[in-house]
């Protein structure tokens, strides 16, 4: 008896893996970063600030995208954003740590350590339960911050001007230098995120999203994968928070408020989960829409934002990233009924 069964679909010729090589990725990342650094020198100050905010907020949303790849969405990413920002601001004001790079890294680490005890708990939940639990945690932190006078209560507190590699920054340079630090930090984390997405652990996240039962039956740990994603997202969010507070020079509990978390989710949905670059583009789009809408329609800018999101969901259901990510492999069926 011949050992063959019908396939009902024509076979496709084999092709090599689609993923870009590491070298191309690094070279492309460096080129893009260099281009942004050069462009920043010629940008007006308002635009430099806008891109700084977009890149640092983008890092927080990158954390959400990282979790989305595992099938969950955090509605409380403001939690790690606030923890990272408060850590950086407190290290500056209380410990005298002024270096921008050190503060950014510190923000990431403190946020990761702060949420690490919750990772095993959260890794047990999915869907709306995960979203609500993360939201609840962020609102608990918001409440604590509002009531803690030592941290400025609901008014927050200010932090002074940071240094970079021991150099004090003058009025003329501070905007651009913080822009450059943010762009480089975002580029490094974006590159690491891409490497993670293409790794076997990154692939496991997609598998968890698709079929948890089979992951366990293959000897993989679903909960460990979810906990790791949650903590990596915390590092990205904490770093973003630290970068933002350095540029703003002020922090208050609203960093942890649910509407702040909502904006990060907005960017993640806008970007989709396929492309790292799309996260930063989406974040920039949000900042641009917000800036111009609040200028021209100060009381209804959220309406413009909502309409824009509706447009994207209708015409780009897989997010902005789907514009250039080929519809192959993991990407093609992600919007199929689950």
């Amino acid at each position: 008896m011949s050992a063959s069964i019908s396939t009902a679909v024509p076979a496709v010729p084999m092709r090599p893996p689609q993923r870009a090589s590491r070298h191309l990725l690094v070279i492309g990342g460096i080129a893009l970063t260099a281009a942004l650094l050069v462009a920043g020198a010629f940008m007006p100050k308002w635009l430099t600030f806008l891109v700084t905010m977009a890149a640092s907020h983008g890092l927080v949303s990158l954390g959400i995208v990282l979790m989305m790849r595992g099938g969950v969405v955090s509605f409380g990413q403001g939690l790690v954003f606030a923890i990272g920002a408060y850590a950086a601001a407190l290290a500056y004001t209380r410990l005298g740590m002024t270096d921008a790079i050190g503060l950014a890294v510190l923000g990431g680490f403190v946020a990761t350590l702060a949420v690490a005890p919750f990772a095993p708990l959260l890794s047990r939940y999915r869907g709306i339960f995960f979203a609500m639990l993360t939201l609840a945690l962020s609102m608990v932190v918001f409440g604590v911050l509002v009531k803690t006078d030592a941290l400025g209560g609901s008014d927050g507190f200010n932090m002074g001007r940071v240094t970079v590699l021991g150099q004090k920054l003058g009025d003329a340079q501070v905007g651009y230098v913080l822009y450059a630090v943010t762009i480089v930090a975002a580029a490094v984390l974006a590159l690491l995120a891409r490497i993670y997405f293409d790794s076997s652990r990154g692939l496991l996240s997609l598998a968890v999203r698709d079929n948890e039962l089979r992951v366990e039956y293959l000897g993989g740990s679903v909960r460990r994968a979810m906990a790791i994603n949650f903590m990596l997202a915390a590092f990205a969010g904490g770093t973003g928070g630290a970068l933002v507070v350095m540029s703003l020079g002020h922090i208050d509990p609203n960093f942890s408020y649910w509407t702040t978390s909502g904006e990060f989710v907005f960017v993640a949905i806008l970007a989709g989960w396929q492309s790292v670059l799309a996260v930063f583009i989406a974040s920039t789009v949000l900042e641009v829409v917000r800036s111009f809408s609040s200028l021209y329609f100060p009381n209804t800018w959220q309406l413009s934002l909502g309409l824009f999101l509706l447009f994207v969901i209708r015409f780009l259901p897989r997010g902005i990233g789907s514009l250039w990510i080929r519809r192959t492999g993991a990407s093609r069926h992600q919007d199929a009924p689950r």
Partner: protein
Amino acid sequence: MTAPLLRASGLEKRFGALVAASAITLDVQAGERVSLIGSNGAGKTTFVNMITGYLKPDAGRIELAGRDITPLDPRAITRLGVARSFQIPQLYPALSVLDNMLVAIACQENRLSFWQVARRADAVARADALLERFTLLEHRERLVAELPGGVRKLLDIAMALTGEPQLLLLDEPTSGVSAEEKFPMMEIVMTAVGAQPLTVLFVEHDMDIVERYADRVVAFYSGRIIADAAPQAALAADEVRRYVTGTLEVTTC
């Protein structure tokens, strides 16, 4: 006689009033091909689920090569060399066939890395070798969601074999496959499985398949074993003919 690879002793499982397993005792020697037969609800899949740790027995003990695996979860049991396929293939529909295999290889090798690309050369080579054994190589870049049922079944089994298990449990490997494709499919599976020193337990409803591929048949009815013998003897047993194959007429007065 050597110690059995798998020993189930006095397994009991109830779901409320329903008795899914009652005093199930079974030894399986290494290298055996054992078919589990029985009508729907007889307790075959419950037995497989207890062996693989998905269900915990209410009573009894399960040993793998002398080690008690009763309290272990599916992940731990998988790591000890027990693999399974499913009646409804449990795959990753949004991923390609190759990526499904790579997830399986990475999990079973316990070589999950943040840094190394998922499509590393040695893993891809291993995946391709298995896909070739299962005649799936031509589909390697195709999305699982696009594949027909028979191909999904084969992929489900191929993934189970990535860890080179000692014991393979196949839950109805030919269910949902057309009658004319059952034998070719089972031929592919058994040929592929034959390349490894493997003990196989398979749940099956097609008695022709059972007769051809099993060394031994264990028949279930109402959560208990009603026959355990070589295929011809088991299929000829009155209780099996009455409750499983339906070839023994029940006379009423």
